[in-house]
């Protein structure tokens, strides 16, 4: 048995994959958007499984609070504040030197992601916000590439496989950008919830990459590991022929750059302004409640709330707009915004 055959022998012994499926996996390129908890787990899994290429995209760097649930990273990565995509790439190369890994340290916006789509076979969700998820959802539809959605918070999580032309898309399932304020920064997260999501994402990825399309899960999984709950929900009825993302006359709204979240430094001030893609507005009262119970220092009035966070002060308005005082760094401001709103 040669080196590579030995390496993947247990995966090839699994009948539904076999040597043929392994060969298929070895030709495939997956784009992992977000290299945090979900993204590090799925990219480690796919590197070990022997995909041809992984592209990892993340704007953030490793910090101490990531180590509790984000694989691939060590204390040294946190001390050096290494970019997540680069730190992940370095470790993945030690794990499987045969896999091509491209690290992109940047904001995953529409222009960048479209430029990366050329030979991508699969989109994997590792992001921490719905803005980027809706963008990935549009990309999946426009380029006819499967997209494996996943998300988690606390002990709760969910996963769903979106196959263009077959299943409903994320926009069919969730009409509006959800802004509930439950994020890992407000209600925490335990690592097993991450693993539970990536176990589902990983199995779906192996089915898709090995050509076992008939095995793909048709249900939306939602679970709570602390409450010992597991739901597998049929989703087909939500497929909407009028959907602007996957319907008969798609417009891919999140690929329209004029609809993107606007992030800009306010002229002459140490403040970044953020205007979200949709102007559905923010449920200020609910957010106030979430942030207060997360132990954050909160103030405000009926028109706005202010929150102290990581040395900055973030002010949120009812119309969805936010000002992040104390920084001129656009990525840091985005990070704070998503860590508070989702």
């Amino acid at each position: 048995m040669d080196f590579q055959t030995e390496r993947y022998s247990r995966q090839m012994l699994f009948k539904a994959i076999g040597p043929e499926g392994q060969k298929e996996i070895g030709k495939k390129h997956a784009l992992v958007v977000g290299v945090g908890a979900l993204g590090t787990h799925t990219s480690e899994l796919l590197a070990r499984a022997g995909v041809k290429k992984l592209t990892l995209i993340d704007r953030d760097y490793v910090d101490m609070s990531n180590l509790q649930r984000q694989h691939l990273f060590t204390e040294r990565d946190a001390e050096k504040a290494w970019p997540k995509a680069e730190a992940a790439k370095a470790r993945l190369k030690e794990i499987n030197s045969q896999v091509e890994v491209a690290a992109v340290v940047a904001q995953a916006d529409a222009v960048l992601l479209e430029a990366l789509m050329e030979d991508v076979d699969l989109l994997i969700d590792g992001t921490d916000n719905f803005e980027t998820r809706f963008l990935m959802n549009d990309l999946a539809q426009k380029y006819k590439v499967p997209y494996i959605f996943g998300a988690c918070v606390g002990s709760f999580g969910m996963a769903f496989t979106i196959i263009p032309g077959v299943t409903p898309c994320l926009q069919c399932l969730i009409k509006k950008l959800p802004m509930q304020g439950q994020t890992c920064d407000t209600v925490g997260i335990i690592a097993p919830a991450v693993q539970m999501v990536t176990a589902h994402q990983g199995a779906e990825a192996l089915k898709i990459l090995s050509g076992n399309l008939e095995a793909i899960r048709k249900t939306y999984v939602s679970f709570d590991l602390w409450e010992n709950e597991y739901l597998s929900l049929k989703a087909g009825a939500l497929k909407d022929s009028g959907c602007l993302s996957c319907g008969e006359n798609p417009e891919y709204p999140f690929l329209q750059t004029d609809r993107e979240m606007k992030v800009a430094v306010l002229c002459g001030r140490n403040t970044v302004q953020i205007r979200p893609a949709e102007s559905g507005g923010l449920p200020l009262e609910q957010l106030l409640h979430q942030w207060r119970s997360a132990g954050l220092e909160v103030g405000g009035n009926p028109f706005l709330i202010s929150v102290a966070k990581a040395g900055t002060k973030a002010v949120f308005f009812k119309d969805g707009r936010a000002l992040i005082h104390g920084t001129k760094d656009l990525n840091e401001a985005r990070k704070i915004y998503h860590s508070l709103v989702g």
Partner: protein
Amino acid sequence: MNKIMLFAQLKEDMGKSSMEVVAAGKTVGELRAFLEKETSLGSLDGIMIAVNEEFAKDEWIIEEKDEIALIPPVSGG
């Protein structure tokens, strides 16, 4: 009566994991509006609603004894 199962923050908001509501005859959209108005769940915008383990559109009419689940999408990752 209909059992409504709550998950994640909805469970916390209500302080219980399920509740009983008379929903038969209502559409899913009407139930959503009813719960927003009559309970402390707050806005259910973006919350997905499943009837008997199947997601249902807002027009779907709920029947007696149907089991309903409110699934909040969460954003972490």
